[in-house]
């Protein structure tokens, strides 16, 4: 399950697999928790300056504490809008507070962040120059990719640079 969630976040699942997994997450509170933790970890690794803490449970609590407005039928729409606005305001306020506290208080684990950067590192490279065509062609003759793709694999040699 954890692997699946991780794969989903990395975009390695196909659409139908992803849908099935999201369904499962929705039904299973544990998996839902995992999902949030993975995202939190991912955020922390990518951008330790702006750590986004999980505030969903706090928001849920505040929303439940909001008074339910009982009013005549004709005014329901307007009330609903007010309710939404006040809820949105609460969420924003909470987010701001959380964000501020994280800004001040947190010291992200530098080692983990460094490792992540190392694996994501892609050396700077230039586009393949046309002088390389002969090497590419000579490589393509033997490359196993030609076995399955057939002549189409030569597109790598012919493609405009």
């Amino acid at each position, binding site marked *: 399950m954890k692997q699946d969630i991780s794969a989903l976040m*990395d*975009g*390695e699942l*196909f*659409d*139908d*697999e992803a849908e099935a997994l999201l369904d499962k997450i929705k039904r299973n509170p544990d998996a839902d928790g995992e999902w949030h933790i993975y995202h939190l970890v991912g955020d922390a690794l990518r951008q330790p300056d702006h750590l986004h803490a999980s505030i969903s449970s706090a928001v849920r609590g505040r929303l439940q504490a909001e008074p339910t407005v009982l009013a005549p039928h004709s005014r329901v729409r307007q009330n609903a809008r007010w309710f939404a606005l006040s809820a949105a305001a609460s969420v924003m306020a909470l987010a701001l507070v959380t964000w501020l506290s994280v800004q001040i208080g947190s010291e992200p684990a530098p080692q983990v962040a460094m490792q992540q950067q190392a*694996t*994501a590192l*892609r*050396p*700077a*490279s*230039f*586009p*393949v*120059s*046309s002088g*390389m*065509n*002969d*090497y*590419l*062609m*000579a*490589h393509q*003759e*033997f*490359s*196993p*990719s*030609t*076995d*399955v*793709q*057939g*002549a*189409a694999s*030569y*597109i*790598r*040699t*012919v*493609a*405009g*640079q």
Partner: protein
Amino acid sequence: MQAAVIKPACLSVLLLLASAGACADPVRQDDLNWLQIMAFAAHQTDYSGTFVYRYGDHVETSRITHIADHDGEHGRLESLDGPRREIIRHNDQMWCDLGNGKIKIEQRQGGREFPALLPEQLTLLNKNYLIKTAEEVRLAGFHAHGMVFQPKDNFRYMHKMWADSISGLLLKSEVLDERGGVIEQYSFTQLSIGGDIDRKWVVANQAAAGLHAADVQKVRQTHNDSRDVPHDGNTHPADSVPKTTADSVASGWRVDALPDGFKKIAEVRRQLRGKDAPVIQMVFSDGLAGISVFIEKSDSDEDDHEGLSSQGVIQVYSKLINGQLITVVGEVPPRTVMQVADSVRNGGSQ
């Protein structure tokens, strides 16, 4: 004429290979069979279509036509966007026009025309990739069977392929990096399989290139008979025919830190265009991706540029070691070509 194998014979050998492997690993045998079918289809199907090839910001459309008949394989690949580029292939002969108007002829090496994957290649594939069936989708009007090749380490890329569920012809393929980003995609937008395929080009384009059937024959014979460039008067194509004899050698060069899962499949000494001296080429395969190591004496007057360059899934890394220019080319991540280039050593005779 390795390729002039008749279809029924191929098919029966294919089935034989498939059934021989069936005892080994019953779980993934279906997937391996699919691979065999795809490899067979790539070489033995008549088709014609348009596909889109993209990597990074680069997108281009090309037309491909392929015919397999009693005379072997005929293929033509033609760019539809940008400058005109074209490759025409007939078995081991190739005519390339890469935009500069020049026609060159390459001779494909080795007996690789047999349209089935060899058992050892499947073993390598199985060792290096987790092969999974992916979802069935509809592509270019065909019902496609999907397969995922998930690498077991980070020396190779992840590949996803979709093939027509009837013919086995590859309809779409994607190569993904370790973070799941698509680095290269190839996908048919229009395709006709079998039926009436216009084959005028098989002759017409050779004529346009100044290569009449007779010349082709002559060129081929000359290649077989001697290593000299043929000079037969009026034919300008002959001038651009490189001496492409590639002899298998034991060059004495080796790769000390070859990443796990790669196996040497060829080592040849060959002439590349515009090079004074022959070049050593070693080729390694992990079943799906290949790495070529080219070794040549560096001519210091030329600016042999060192470093990494890439185009989609292809990485090229060049490096000078003791006056020798090492060029590593492969459908693998940068770290793989760099590790290979950094560990090339000369273990004695050259």
